């Protein structure tokens, strides 16, 4: 079977519900799935943020201080560190007035990946190329 590609589409905002957070933690789990599979088999998710899903992607989140929970910002950095591909819909960032330089990166932790700001058509392409799509 080789690699199975999954497109995770995060369409809900972070924090009020748990769903959009679970998209990040489930994507991170791709690092260890091979222990359950045959040699050479892998599962590779992409994280795609659209609509209100792009809210909660900005720097400076104080979730630990206010509520004692890990911030989405921190999860995003971990995702970049383990080389997950993250795509954020440019049209939605524009609509909500979020600038690219407000998005977190993990440069200081040595991550090579960055969040990709892309038109929705790229996200649709990610869904088309994936074996499965999962909406969060």
């Amino acid at each position, binding site marked *: *079977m080789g690699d*199975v590609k*999954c497109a995770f589409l995060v369409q*809900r905002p972070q924090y009020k*519900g*748990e*769903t959009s957070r*679970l*998209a990040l*933690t*489930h994507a*991170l*789990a*791709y*690092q*260890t*799935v091979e*222990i*359950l*599979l045959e040699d050479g*088999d892998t*599962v590779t*998710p992409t994280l795609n943020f659209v609509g209100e899903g792009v809210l909660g992607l900005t720097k400076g989140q104080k979730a630990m201080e206010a509520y004692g929970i890990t911030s989405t910002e921190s999860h995003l950095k971990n995702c970049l560190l383990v080389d997950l591909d993250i795509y954020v819909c440019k049209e939605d960032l524009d609509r909500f007035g979020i600038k690219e330089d407000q998005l977190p990166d993990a440069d200081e932790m040595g991550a090579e990946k960055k969040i990709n700001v892309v038109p929705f058509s790229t996200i649709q392409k990610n869904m088309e190329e994936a074996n*499965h*799509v*999962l*909406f*969060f």
Partner: protein
Amino acid sequence: MGKLAMGVYPGLVGSACYDFALKLADAAANKGHKVSIWFSGNATGSVKAHQKHLKDYSTGEKYLTSLLERGVEICTCEACTIARGVQKPEGIEKIKWSAMHWYLGSIHAADRVLHIGGE
């Protein structure tokens, strides 16, 4: 026959998404398909054993037990479950407890994935 991998996240008794998921799993198993179910988020509360079936509430336990008997694989997210105070000995027998990679593993062999992300 195919394989359907399901992920179920919305909260147990209080969400008809959960009833839907169990009835669909039942129908797919009846047709001879392989089915797996991954519980995460609030749905993990549903692995608690000894649910009382009151007529005003749906209940998952009898469905889950019946699905397990027919070979449906069911696994709950261990972290989500213990965060809710439910320990493994209190859970319904034969439901697996694992980390999130179990879900990705179940997707690998699946022909269709129905991920019910919920609220």
